[in-house]
């Protein structure tokens, strides 16, 4: 049992009690954890778990990681064909394809982290019933796996922006500091909300297994609650939806995050007039007025929600092993 293994002096033969200096190790409850913080203390295990999921996802397929590009790309083509070409929803918007795809990157990331997070405890029941480790690990790991899958989409997005700037009739796409900060804030928002919901939902799903189907039902609605397949002014101009619902609409963190990432990627490709009324030629708002301050307030609320998620998780997870 020596750490040195094959050195010439042979294995360390002192008893474990002396070698580990157990007299100075405290007696503790074996199941004690400090919640999400413990997860980041065990970064090595977290990294292995994330890598395991990523590797296992496309194991045995010929295209491998290429599927991470193919899937979002085809989904984008479908949405673009239906909403942009068929329904003409892009009317009044410059570079509608980028407007749409920028939003899809974040919405995909968010929906994937919530659905995978919700299933994470049940999917790992073999381990959870037998090994003691911080169980927050599972929802956090599935959030990070989803983040990893967002990277190819961001790459596609950047290439699309560069190509639009080069060949399109708008300005060249030059990432500006404010825009990149906004996009980053959008990602952080989805990360925080995705983790908070993943934590809460994963436990509830063990106790009440219909929950993942309920989550799935609502998650399918999420892409339509953000201004990506249609322009923001559809909501804001008060002709389609009564104006009092506008406040409710923009209180949605997904809608906020989508507008933030559009500010980073889509807006510079067509600034300063990205949305123009096709009939009157008037300028229309691209985003909600106080985009950045809203973003930071929502981040604050998200962090509170994360703390609440941790609280719910630690209350419920005690009974998880016996319910699996």
């Amino acid at each position, binding site marked *: 049992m020596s*750490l040195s293994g094959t050195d010439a002096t042979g294995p360390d*033969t002192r*008893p*474990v009690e002396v070698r*580990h200096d157990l007299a100075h190790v405290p007696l503790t409850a*074996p199941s004690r954890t400090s919640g999400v913080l413990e997860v980041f203390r065990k970064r090595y295990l977290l990294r292995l778990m994330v890598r*395991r999921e990523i590797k296992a996802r496309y*194991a045995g397929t010929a295209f491998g990681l290429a599927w991470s590009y193919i899937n979002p790309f085809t989904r984008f083509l479908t949405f673009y064909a239906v909403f942009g070409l068929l329904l003409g929803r892009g009317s009044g918007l410059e570079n509608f394809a980028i407007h749409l795809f920028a939003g899809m990157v974040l919405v995909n990331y968010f929906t994937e982290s919530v659905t995978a997070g919700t299933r994470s405890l049940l999917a790992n029941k073999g381990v959870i019933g037998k090994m003691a480790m911080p169980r927050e690990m599972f929802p956090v790991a599935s959030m990070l796996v989803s983040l990893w899958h967002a990277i190819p989409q961001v790459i596609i997005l950047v290439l699309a922006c560069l190509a639009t700037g080069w060949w399109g009739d708008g300005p060249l796409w030059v990432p500006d500091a404010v825009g990149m900060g906004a996009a980053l804030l959008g990602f952080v928002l989805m990360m925080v909300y995705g983790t908070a919901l993943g934590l809460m939902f994963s436990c509830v799903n063990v106790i009440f*297994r219909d929950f993942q189907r309920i989550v799935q039902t609502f998650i399918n609605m999420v892409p339509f609650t953000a201004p990506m397949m249609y322009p923001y002014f559809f909501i804001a101009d008060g002709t389609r939806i009564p104006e009092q619902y506008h406040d409710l609409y923009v209180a949605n963190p997904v809608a906020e995050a989508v507008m933030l990432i559009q500010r980073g990627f889509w807006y510079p490709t067509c600034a300063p007039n990205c949305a123009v009324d096709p009939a009157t030629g008037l300028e229309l708002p691209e985003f909600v007025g106080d985009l950045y301050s809203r973003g930071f307030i929502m981040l604050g609320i998200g962090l509170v929600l994360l703390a609440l998620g941790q609280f719910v998780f630690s209350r419920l997870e005690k009974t998880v092993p016996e319910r699996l």
Partner: protein
Amino acid sequence: MTTSIVVDNVSKTFRYQSHVTLKKVLQNRMGGKRSDESFKALDGVSFEVQQGESIGLMGLNGSGKSTLLKLVSGVMRPDEGQVLTRGRISGLIATGAGFHNELSGRENIYMNAAMLGMSKEETDAKFDDIAAFADVGRFMDTAVGNYSSGMFARLGFSVAVHVDCDIFIADEVLAVGDRPFKRKCLKRMKEIRESGITMFYVSHSAGSVKKMCDRAIVLDKGKVGFDGDVDGAIKYLHYDGDDEEPDTEESSEDERDDALANDI
């Protein structure tokens, strides 16, 4: 001498039906029945274990042995009382738990070792020992989904016994594996015991408990029925009767295994 495990007045209750459908809940409500019938898997269990002791945990099926192991290993939490342990725990309740069928043996070794609390450097240093003990040969880089059940179990066992732990938990260890592997396991467990690691060994076989342990705890319907020397425990359980042919045969088998293990 330091205390290694403290189990203080621990109880654990399970519900008979932990999963109910909405239909059943409604039926029960209408019929005025309550569905929260429960039973105590463990009821006021208390004992202390000193570092380096090896404890045999015995008892009939359903006496609460597995629940107690899960509480000591930290998988479950007690409803009442408290369980305290000192140092790192490894064990064989979980051989192969957390193995991912799509990943290779090598990747799974690193993954499993990390779950048991080993760092990358520690696993690197012990990797050759683990691989040699598991003895899966060329299959090391094959997905474990293609392993035979024996290879799968050997790999899991091999990781668990190479953790530099302070408490080692073994639950029905020798249920899998062929005779040479059993022999290897016994030898290894002996080494673990002699290095001063606290051993918590669960078995139905009186013979192997006699060989491996210097103290035995017998659980009887969730309570500590007996706590003391191994011979007393065997007497308590009536495992020493001549009428139990299969058991005596098994114990002689164990003795032979052990004798062989000593020879190596």
